[in-house]
């Protein structure tokens, strides 16, 4: 039987290095493979033996795009292990560090990576001749998003202030006022760029799958909550091993995750909206209605549009938090704690979806065991399942065309390969 393998090599405009291949045999798409190519950085193994103090600094180096959430999730997991609870003000400040990171990451993905292709261009540089004003606005938005992380976290890439027990430095009242003004400016500038993404004509490809997101039932989740598997179960963060497991594939340097019932699943903005749509801000919901978007949606390409809606939601949330914080005093930057043996888990929502950090500490606060599950590692199997169906619907088209569409599908997931390519297996 004739066999053809379509490979998209080193997919451009995604974070990290990945090939994606599809095997077509006798006119049928029989296999799809997400091949993480990133050099293996073994971060979990490196963490073993390190002091709990170092863990967040090292963990944040997993990814340069979503480092803020890695840092905060690592801090929270260590705090869980040591039984540390923070005052509400510090929790709010942590959210601001992370929201700055989410806004920055979504802007990078939507306007630097996704938009050029949908406008028939290769890169954001090619948008300059016809759309310089839009690019300028997008850059302004990006700068404002980074400023939020800089003010609250000390630095946009690999923030420095979140530490176990709280913060190493609290922003001054004046800085928080500045952050509030910047976020209001962000929301003001968002109109046209959002319209551009929300009016894009995306392929009408649907496939039923399972969506997994953090869930509180009270607010749109970010740093705290239980985990909800759509149509199945809500579980506590520390129970994650009962519900998800990994498979190793010899073609990939990342672990690929599935649910314990064998099903692939999707995490990310679309999963968050599918699970928590009612808790999205009113204006974000109105915007969705204006553009005829409905959630839950089983269209993977809607992940792009879900991210756009989140830009509005998260900027509004930042404004609410900042106004609230300015109304009260932040009494302490750090809570005291004692070292003890312990195990801690933190599950958060990274820009690209559910993120799990799990550490076991000995009595001296050294890491005995570390496990980190990134969103992209959880999405690989879902990408593969989508690609099987999507390429089937494209059979008969030119190879170049199929590759181009496949690339767009993978990019809709906003993969972050550096994050995911760390797995190791001891003999």
């Amino acid at each position: 039987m004739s066999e053809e393998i379509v490979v998209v090599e080193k997919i451009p405009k995604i974070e990290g290095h990945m090939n994606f291949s599809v095997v077509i045999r006798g006119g049928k798409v029989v296999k799809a493979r997400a091949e993480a190519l990133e050099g293996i950085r073994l971060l979990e193994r490196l963490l073993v033996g390190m002091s709990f103090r170092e863990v967040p600094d090292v963990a944040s180096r997993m990814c340069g795009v979503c480092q803020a959430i890695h840092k905060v999730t690592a801090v929270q997991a260590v705090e869980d292990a040591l039984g540390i609870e923070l005052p509400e003000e510090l929790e709010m400040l942590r959210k601001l560090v992370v929201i700055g990171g989410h806004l920055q990451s979504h802007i990078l993905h939507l306007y630097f990576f996704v938009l050029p292709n949908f406008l028939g261009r290769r890169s954001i540089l090619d948008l300059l001749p016809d759309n310089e004003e839009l690019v300028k606005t997008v850059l302004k938005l990006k700068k404002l998003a980074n400023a939020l992380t800089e003010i609250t976290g000390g630095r946009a890439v690999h923030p420095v202030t979140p530490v176990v027990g709280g913060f190493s430095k609290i922003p001054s009242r004046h800085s928080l006022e500045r952050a509030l003004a910047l976020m209001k400016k962000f929301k003001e500038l968002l109109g046209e760029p959002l319209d551009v993404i929300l009016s894009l004509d995306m392929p009408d490809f649907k496939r039923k799958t399972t969506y997994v997101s953090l869930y509180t039932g009270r607010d749109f989740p970010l740093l705290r909550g239980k985990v909800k598997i759509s149509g199945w179960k809500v579980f506590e963060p520390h129970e994650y091993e009962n519900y998800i497991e990994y498979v190793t594939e010899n073609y990939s340097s990342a672990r690929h995750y599935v649910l314990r019932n064998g099903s692939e699943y999707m995490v990310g903005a679309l999963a968050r909206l599918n699970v928590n749509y009612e808790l999205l801000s009113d204006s974000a919901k109105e915007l969705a209605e204006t553009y005829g978007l409905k959630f839950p949606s089983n269209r993977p390409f809607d992940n792009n549009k879900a991210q756009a809606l989140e830009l509005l939601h998260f900027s509004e949330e930042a404004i609410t938090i900042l106004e609230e914080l300015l109304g009260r005093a932040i009494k302490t930057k750090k809570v005291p704690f004692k070292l003890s043996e312990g195990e801690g888990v933190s599950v958060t929502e990274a820009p690209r979806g559910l993120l799990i950090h799990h550490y076991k500490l000995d009595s001296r606060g050294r890491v005995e065991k570390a496990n980190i599950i990134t969103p992209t590692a959880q999405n690989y199997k879902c990408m593969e399942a989508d690609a099987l169906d999507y390429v089937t619907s494209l059979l008969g088209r030119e190879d170049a065309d199929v590759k181009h569409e496949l690339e767009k599908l993978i990019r809709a997931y906003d993969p972050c390969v550096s994050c995911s390519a760390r797995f190791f297996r001891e003999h």
Partner: protein
Amino acid sequence: MYRGNGKLKVGIFSLSSCEGCLVQVLNLEDELIDIFKAIDLVSCRLLGVEKEYDALDVAIVEGAVTNKEEEKELHEIREKSKLLIALGDCACHGGKFIVKDFHVKEIAMWLPRGVDKFRADPLDKYVNVDYHVYGCPIDREDFITLLKDLLLGRVYRPVSYNVCAECILKENECLLDEKIPCLGPITRGGCKAICPSHGRECIGCRGPAEDTNVDSLIDIFREKGIEIPPYLLSLIKNLGGAKRV
């Protein structure tokens, strides 16, 4: 560098890293459009730029070398480019400041895709590197300085003094006085002492300052009665290779 009448042909390449240094370049929001107009960017996978080219004036390489494919890619880049720049700590030092005293030989591991051992090497272990841009992540202003120097045909010189020099100018309280084991005295500056300015010890991400004296930092620690925590001992080892540690 003489470059005739045309624009500088620049390629940006990523080996194994978190790509945070490249994100720092994209975080130059005020300058980015001017940068794109001032140079002829011919390759950058993250941005989707892939033009055809035979030779480059400047190759900017981020990330560490972790396998044979990357080693080969690095050699190819070097052959094609007049100048090669190591961008960020992974490219400059192999990202070793977070790797510390991890010895892969001590643990038996199974590695996928035919990789037989774990490594994270700096670029200059394999090729000649013309300029180093230090830091994890790099400082945005360092990148602007580098570009200006390249465009003007000047030599790029990273800051040679230590983090303390910048920390003192900011009138920060010394963390060593608070008995916090800060690596500022031995670490290369240029970061504007960002960590100590936010109440955090310097973790040495820019590598050793020129003519640094690691032993004297250990003396300072002892003098001030700062207990040298094990994780800093391993950091110091990677920074300066102090014999006494």
